[in-house]
């Protein structure tokens, strides 16, 4: 595969330009889309996004089926920030909302002991060095976060890295061809671009 073609899901939630600049920078070709045919013909699916969980699921409703079936068929997936939270079972943000339910677990609010949103550069503690997404990434690297909620995965084995902010939470999860990060790799400078590059390399293999 010479050029990796990614479908960035356009569901009107936040800044899609940054993630597409980041993926282009590491050599992917991207299409910001809600067209099922484009999603089908892509080499990988990316769900970025900033905003409220409930609104996001509402906006994703018409694409939910195609995204889930593509992932089930083995298409590589990257979820970022809100796109990371959406792959879990449910969220408690502004009432209880059902997610894509790719992974078990609930998305809950950060403890009241810390200032929210959790905004800025914080460290990742790598739990699974064998995962392709963290290849070449140092333990305790700083990455850029903006969020007030975090998921508690039912299956701890999907946790690739954690971060501490009032609580120790899963900041990267992965299983087979499904990857997701709570932080913004597209805003995390060299470390973040390397993570995006790792995702592209995974698809190429």
């Amino acid at each position, binding site marked *: 595969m010479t050029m990796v073609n990614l479908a960035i899901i356009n569901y009107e939630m936040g800044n899609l*330009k940054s993630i597409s600049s980041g993926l282009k920078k590491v050599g992917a070709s991207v299409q910001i889309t809600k067209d099922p045919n484009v999603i089908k013909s892509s080499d990988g699916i990316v769900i970025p996004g900033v905003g409220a969980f409930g609104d996001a699921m509402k906006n994703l409703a018409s694409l939910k089926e195609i995204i889930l079936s593509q992932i089930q068929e083995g298409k590589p997936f990257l979820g970022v920030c809100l796109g990371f939270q959406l792959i879990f079972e449910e969220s408690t943000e502004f009432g209880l909302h059902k997610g894509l339910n790719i992974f078990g677990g609930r998305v809950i609010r950060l403890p009241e002991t810390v*200032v929210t*949103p959790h*905004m*800025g550069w914080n*460290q990742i503690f790598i739990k699974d060095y064998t995962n392709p997404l963290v290849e070449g990434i140092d333990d305790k690297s*700083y990455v*850029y976060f903006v969020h007030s909620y975090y998921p508690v995965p039912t299956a701890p084995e999907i946790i690739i890295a954690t971060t501490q902010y009032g609580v120790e939470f899963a900041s990267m999860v992965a299983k087979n061809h499904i990857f997701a990060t709570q932080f913004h790799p597209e*805003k995390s400078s060299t470390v973040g671009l390397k993570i995006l590059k790792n995702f592209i390399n995974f698809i190429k293999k």
Partner: protein
Amino acid sequence: MLAKRIIPCLDMTNGRVVKGVRFVNIRDAGDPPELAVLYEEQGADEIIFLDITASHEKRDILLDVVQRTSDQLFIPFTVGGGIRTVKDIQTILKAGADKVSINTTAVKTPEILTEASRMFGSQCIVCAIDAKRVYVDEKAPPKDRILVETPEGLCWWDVYIYGGRKSMGIDAIQWAQKVEELGAGEIMLTSMDYDGTKDGYDIPLTKEVVKRTNIPIIASGGAGTIQHIKDVFIQTDCSAALAASIFHFREIDIMELKKELQKENIPIRL
């Protein structure tokens, strides 16, 4: 641990970077996206662009800068200056900025902070406050101001708008508390007394605002040496330190600065 941020600020007009010393004597230091990328390479954690273009008709030049920056820059960046409406905010965020900073408009129409934070999230709404000391008679201090004893005397801080040209007679510390309530996610706090002096940050001001608010505070105005930045992080709980000319004219190298901060056990991204 959440790292303290180092933020170079690029003042720009008509799409070019400038930096005023005490808001006059403007010098030219280049293309904004190009400088921003250079700063990312040097280890900056974030970039702030302040557009001081007088004419609102030239907004397309600003938007072009924002777009070009977001294509090349892989750290967060904020755009401020001349924002008047929620629509302005939306346009700038859509062009690729991560946050907007609002100053004069927030003072004149505070509800913009609430409306914008509801629409786009408080994390992308920075309220900029320009504050200047007003020294008072210790024997007859005003009652409705937050007074702080500084080495230079008892004072309160007055809010200025229009790029530091107009005094509002509003208590800056009370204003900081108010903007948090209204929905600002962050405060960029500039000392008018220290801005451009290279005498260090206004520590009493920064300390007092940090103490009385619960959102990140960016200390601004007065950085001249590495020691000044160390001081503001050691003596106050601010989240970030902003500087302009010392970075633009290479008086301080960001990497060197960060290594020095780390020696003091200040959490920093290296």
